[in-house]
């Protein structure tokens, strides 16, 4: 969703720039209390993580690309003030070091993605955490939903900017643009929500001191074994399916169809590297990641695979499929558990893999 130079008129860009600077100054003031020895490297990592997932870009509307935003993730891990700074840093570095996003549009981009996205994500998160149990599943669900809301609202921030300073009358109505943006970003939000939820729950389980939203408190153990997990998965799936259905309906008229977000048509070699065919992940690698930090750094010196960049690309494009796969595996694990009466290794263990071969 990086706006490039010249999309939004000068006066509006300037106004947003002023607002962004003022709000960032506020964040800096508040962050000073938070940014201690521990939070400084954490903030750096959150920024790096967001930087990495933002590398997958695809066009959504004239002059606007869609990708993960990371505001809710940042808010959950380092709080709203430092979180907004993290996302801003990502945007500044992208503009200056990677020529991504216009320098004169920095104010616009920071307003949408860093300020609006993080603030909304944090508010939703705090609200949900009050309602949901303080278990891993509860936190995960809260982060998941906060991500979706934050991404969708940030996209509406762009629409507002376009209405104010788009400088060109369109045959398609602003309502339609708004709906399309919301639809596409709901889908993006699901992918982002899954990634953010997995990340935050893992961190919360092992290092609760690193999750700002928990404020240092340990997670509660689920009262009844397994049930909240299932609730989480099914609830998440329901929301995902709903949004996906609605979104693809809304987005079907957008210039870049959603079919581009699948990997159909790609051939994949031994190590999961895309070797042929045409699909978004590959395009993204060629155009965006091909020259990017991660693509160059991924597995340099060890293999010509795409490493983290590839992994992230894969995960994002498969985000929706993953949700289903995840649920199926969970249920199968649960079944196997009750059948064998023994604990199968948890997520990511090979037992499940071989069982499915």
């Amino acid at each position, binding site marked *: 969703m990086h706006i490039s130079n010249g999309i939004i008129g000068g006066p509006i860009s300037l106004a947003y720039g002023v607002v962004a600077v003022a709000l960032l100054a506020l964040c800096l003031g508040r962050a000073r209390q938070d940014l201690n020895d521990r939070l400084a490297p954490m903030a750096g990592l959150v920024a790096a993580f967001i930087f990495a997932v933002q590398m997958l870009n695809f066009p959504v509307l004239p002059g606007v690309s869609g990708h993960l935003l990371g505001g809710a993730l940042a808010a959950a891990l380092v709080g709203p003030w430092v979180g907004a700074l993290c996302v801003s840093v990502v945007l500044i570095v992208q503009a200056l070091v990677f020529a991504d996003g216009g320098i004169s549009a920095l104010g616009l981009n920071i307003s949408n993605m860093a300020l609006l996205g993080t603030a909304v994500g944090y508010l939703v998160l705090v609200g949900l955490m009050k309602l949901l149990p303080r278990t891993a599943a509860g936190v995960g669900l809260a982060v998941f939903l906060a991500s979706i809301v934050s991404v969708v609202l940030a996209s509406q921030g762009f629409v507002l900017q376009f209405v104010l300073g788009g400088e060109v009358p369109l045959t398609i109505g602003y309502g339609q643009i708004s709906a399309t943006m919301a639809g596409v970003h709901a889908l993006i939000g699901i992918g982002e929500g899954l990634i953010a939820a997995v990340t935050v729950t893992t961190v919360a389980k092992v290092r609760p001191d690193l999750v700002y939203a928990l404020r240092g408190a340990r997670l509660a153990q689920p009262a009844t074994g397994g049930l909240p997990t299932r609730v989480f998965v099914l609830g998440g799936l329901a929301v995902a399916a709903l949004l996906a259905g609605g979104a693809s309906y809304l987005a079907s008229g957008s210039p870049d169809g959603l079919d581009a977000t699948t990997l159909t048509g790609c051939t994949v070699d031994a190590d999961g590297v895309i070797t042929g065919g045409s699909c978004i992940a590959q395009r993204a690698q060629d155009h965006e990641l091909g020259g990017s930090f991660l693509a160059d750094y991924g597995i340099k010196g060890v293999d010509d695979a795409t*490493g983290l960049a590839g992994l992230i690309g894969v995960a994002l494009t498969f985000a929706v499929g993953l949700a289903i796969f995840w649920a199926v595996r969970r249920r199968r694990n649960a079944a196997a558990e009750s059948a064998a009466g023994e604990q199968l290794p948890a997520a990511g263990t090979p037992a499940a893999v071989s069982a499915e071969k």
Partner: protein
Amino acid sequence: MGAGHTHPMYVHGHSPVHHLAPEVKIAASVLFTVVVVATPRELLPAFGAYAVIVAVLAVLARVPAGWLARRSLIELPFVATAVLLPFFAAGPRTDVLGLSVAVEGLWAGWNILVKGTLGVLIALLLAGTTPARDVLIGLDRLRTPQAITQIALFMLRYLDVLADEARRMRIARLSRLDDPRFLWQVRGFAAGLGTLFLRAFERGERVFLAMRSRGYTGRLPAALQEHTRATARQWAVGAAVPVLAVVVLLTDRFLV
């Protein structure tokens, strides 16, 4: 770990532009971009003059044209959509090559195209001649709040750490017979993502503590970068770029 060692956008070289202090280059790029964006889209000759300025800079920096062309592909989505605008814009229409397009849309498309391209090119020249770490040093010297430069510094280092940890985890899986067909990789990814985050954090945290134990106070010691500080002459040279752009804008505005 190589914090901001270089980045793939960096073109190694020893041109005068490379040797310009980073703070000068950043200030000049930002101001130049602002002037470009502030130029009314109808002033065609001005944009031509800007393009000449950019071309001269590229030659001075000895950045290959092919490299610039390839890297500016990042702008492709915008180009594609700028091309679409004439078809979606409302208002009076005209015929171009037998197609009916909106006049307003044509102008808007041109506006995005030319300002976007010039902006990307100037940003690429900055990135291509300035290692990432120097960009941060430049921002620091331009009085950017320390919280921001510090987060940015850690971010660059963590990108390396993340890539490095991801590489390690992948080798570990491969050498123990993981069969990373696509789906498995996605599944392993979901499980591995949180672990990757934690591992990267904990390694980065240890590195941070090691820096602390060698006297780090939140900014890189000045003695390591003394050679890159801007002289008055460099400021004068750097200022020439935006000043030239303003001159172009004004002459065009009032003469044409």
